[in-house]
């Protein structure tokens, strides 16, 4: 009995280890992303609550949206998901050059999106006079899209670090390949959050009836 308990060689019909079969870091990333729904959900709900409420002073966000402009920047972010999978795909085929190129493209598209957001905020504040303090709906708009932008910025930093490492002679190792996959998951997640924001915030253009 005691032998059964200690001897690692005893085969009980069990696998090596009881586990989900998913690599630790990848499981951790997915678990983290699932919690991010609650994070953005709270911000989007707050926006829905206030954008709908009549009687505030100042400009409502829905009065100042520039749909053509935001459509283009949404398209840019969407396409960065394509370049991200292509980078991952290239590295799985050990194509270091391809991975490097697509990583840079992804970071660049992310940076373009961010520049668009900076431009948009500037327009809203300077031209339309809608600031963080105009009314709760404006507060909710800036904080929601701002936190999304912060997520994109963190993603761009991670992409650029990976790109920096991929420029070394030895390129990206297998372990860093996992890093690339994790950054990719994060990046796509930020993209799907924007898919929701683009529709719920911009295209629906909710305002008090």
């Amino acid at each position: 009995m005691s032998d059964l308990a200690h001897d690692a060689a005893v085969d009980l019909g069990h696998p090596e280890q009881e586990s989900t079969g998913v690599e630790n870091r990848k499981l951790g990333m997915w678990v983290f992303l699932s919690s991010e729904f609650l994070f953005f959900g709270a911000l989007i709900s707050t926006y829905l609550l206030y954008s709908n409420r009549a009687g505030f002073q100042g400009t409502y966000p829905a009065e100042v949206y520039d749909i053509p402009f935001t459509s283009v920047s949404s398209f840019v972010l969407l396409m960065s998901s394509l370049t991200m999978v292509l980078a991952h795909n290239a590295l799985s085929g050990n194509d270091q050059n391809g991975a490097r190129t697509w990583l840079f493209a992804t970071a660049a598209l992310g940076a373009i999106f961010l520049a668009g957001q900076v431009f948009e905020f500037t327009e809203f504040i300077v031209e339309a006079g809608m600031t963080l303090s105009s009314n709760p709906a404006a507060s909710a708009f800036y904080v929601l899209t701002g936190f999304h932008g912060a997520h994109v910025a963190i993603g761009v930093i991670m992409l650029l670090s990976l790109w920096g490492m991929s420029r070394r002679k030895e390129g990206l190792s297998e372990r860093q390949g996992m890093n690339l996959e994790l950054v990719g998951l994060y990046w796509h997640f930020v993209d799907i959050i924007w898919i929701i924001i683009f529709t719920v915030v911009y295209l629906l253009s909710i305002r008090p009836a």
Partner: protein
Amino acid sequence: MTSEQHPAHPTPAQYWKIAVLLAVLTAVEVAMFYINNALDLKYFNSIILLSLAGLKFVIVVGWYMHLRYEESTLSRFFSAGFILAISLYTLVLTALGVLAVRGG
């Protein structure tokens, strides 16, 4: 490691096709915005736009994030977070008196 474990990953060509599909869906979304401005579709506008967003969401998660090729544990966690968020915030918004999303 993943490429050996999951040989069924899409190929680059498929990734490009998915991107074209996503681009088309986005174009339809933007078109819907203008159609609604002209015709005022009321609730249909919200339903159509939210469905299109949902479709894009599923495509990115399923194919670009490879969720449909992964262990089912991951889908369960991911959908748990999503469903929990939707349920809780629907309740909160209901309690605060925002029942339905009005179309613009």
